[in-house]
């Protein structure tokens, strides 16, 4: 993987842990390689970044425990073998007590052989739409009705270590919240929302730069009002700005054809996410997702006792399938660069 292309078989030169320009070495230092390793045709690509992962390997990031750090470390270490070198631990809609307990325990840190780097927390909810709550527990959903940004601070208890907040932009006073979050260097993502296109565009003007799992938990594309999906081809994005969009490309959350529609409309904005849950890497059975119990059955996951209107895929690192849908150079690009 060189530039944005999967090149012909080439050598990767490394010195002192850093990738080297071999042409410079050849002509400047006139030195050959000290050690050569045969990677047997494997692809060497930049590490994947997962900006939406709720847990895995039995760890649920949205559980208020005293030892969140060790759960995070376990996931960080285990996802390395899946090619993920940094991630945003994601918390689903939770009561304030969970946020105040969990958030102080998650620290931004660099990755290494011990585990993937932690870029910051992704807070998905609770300021999201009731109609598009997906698997988020309804009793804990909130709005900005009273104090706007103060509501946000009161709910989360603080914003240290927070990198992404997913919210529904159709909510009253969301513009003010988006501006405040953006001012603090936090990426605002629109999602779990029934926003129409102009509301979505307004959110972007206020500073939103991301769309949480495009197509899922938003209004379906309609030609008279394409809703949030319309941001991919909107001409109302301020100059010099770009809206990226996450997609769960497991073939279930989005049909491969829908994935390709998005990709063709805006190939440079695509960011693949897993939206993995604690059951990732575990056998089928009952697990938790924040405040709810979920049942994993094969590739599908249901909220216990509910009809399977929303499903998730447990085999979340579905890069193999995405590969077939988009071709390898693209897949590597979306996971690493965007």
């Amino acid at each position: 993987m060189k530039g944005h292309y999967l090149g012909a078989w080439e050598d990767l030169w490394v010195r002192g842990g850093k990738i080297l320009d071999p042409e410079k070495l050849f002509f400047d230092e006139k030195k050959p390689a000290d050690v050569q390793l045969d990677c047997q045709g494997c692809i060497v690509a930049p590490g994947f970044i997962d900006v939406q992962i709720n847990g895995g390997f039995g760890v649920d990031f949205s559980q208020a425990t005293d030892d969140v750090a060790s759960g995070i470390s376990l996931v960080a270490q285990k996802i390395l073998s899946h090619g993920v070198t940094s991630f945003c631990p994601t918390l689903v809609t939770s009561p304030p007590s969970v946020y105040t307990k969990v958030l102080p325990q998650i620290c931004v840190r660099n990755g290494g052989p011990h585990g993937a780097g932690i870029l910051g927390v992704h807070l998905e909810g609770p300021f999201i739409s009731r109609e598009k709550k997906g698997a988020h527990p309804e009793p804990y959903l909130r709005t900005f009705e009273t104090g706007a940004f103060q509501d946000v601070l009161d709910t989360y208890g603080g914003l240290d270590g927070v990198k992404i907040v997913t919210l529904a932009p159709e909510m009253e006073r969301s513009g003010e919240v988006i501006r405040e979050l953006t001012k603090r260097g936090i990426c605002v993502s629109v999602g779990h929302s029934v926003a129409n296109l102009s509301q979505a565009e307004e959110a972007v003007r206020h500073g939103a730069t991301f769309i949480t799992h495009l197509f899922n938990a938003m209004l379906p594309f309609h030609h008279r009002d394409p809703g949030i999906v319309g941001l991919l081809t909107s001409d109302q994005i301020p100059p010099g700005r770009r809206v990226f969009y996450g997609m769960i490309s497991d073939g279930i959350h989005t049909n491969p054809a829908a994935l390709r529609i998005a990709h063709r409309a805006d190939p440079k904005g695509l960011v693949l996410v897993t939206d993995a849950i604690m059951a990732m890497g575990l056998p089928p059975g009952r697990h938790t997702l924040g405040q709810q119990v979920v049942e994993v059955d094969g590739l599908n996951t249901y909220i216990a006792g509910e009809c399977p209107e929303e499903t998730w895929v447990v085999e979340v690192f579905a890069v193999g399938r995405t590969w077939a849908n988009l071709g390898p150079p693209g897949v590597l690009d979306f996971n690493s660069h965007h």
Partner: protein
Amino acid sequence: MKLIILENYDQASEWAAKYIRNRIIQFNPGPDKYFTLGLPTGSTPLGCYRKLTEYCNNGDLSFKYVKTFNMDEYVGLPRDHPESYHSFMWNNLFKHIDIDPENTHILDGNAPDLQAECDAFEEKIKEAGGIELFVGGIGPDGHIAFNEPGSSLVSRTRVKTLAMDTILANARFFEGDLSKVPTMALTVGVGTVMDAREVMILITGAHKAFALHKAIEEGINHMWTVSAFQQHPCTVFVCDEDATLELKVKTVKYFHGLMFVHNKLVDPLYSMKETGTKKSQGKEPYGD
């Protein structure tokens, strides 16, 4: 002089690569005896370089004891510019083969004293014992290396101003912008190439047909610098059918008829995997 006529570009490239391979292996190079190879850039040798890469990867050929000298380089173009001949050689040959970087030589077009750089290059060739085999290509105007029409046929390595034809032809590599095309180059002289013990010139494509005609069917002329090699004791021209379009039927038929003889230069094809017996065979069995 030998003229090798192959059906198409790929076959001509392969023939040339096989010839280089056999010559290196027959030379039996070692730590005290390097094979010195002169190399061109441009689109013509690409197919040949691909084949050499393949041989090297298969273990049939090694460049461990080969020293290379390149024909030319632009003046003032950054070395890492994609169109520099350093970049060309790195991307199309050096990075694929087992050559020691110490043994590759390319003129430095950014040297503070260009003529000193050229003189040093000549000196390095001399120190390496002269060039065993100089491989070259030509332009449609019959230039060898950057020895443009009118160059002295006894010239040595020096700074050369490019002809308008060459600048125009090169513009396609510089976004079609004439102002970005380098106008000067460092180049080995015709005399430098003439000193090689053997010279192989690759000529392919109909657009080079007139140059091939001028090279071999008319007199030696400094307006077609490649024609100088009529005077070289051991020159082989490798071309495809398209490049013969301007030749006399008589010439083409004569060399076609000789192909069964000339093919013995590449058949049998030697390999470094086989040790001993075949390597010890002497020089090529056929002269001119």
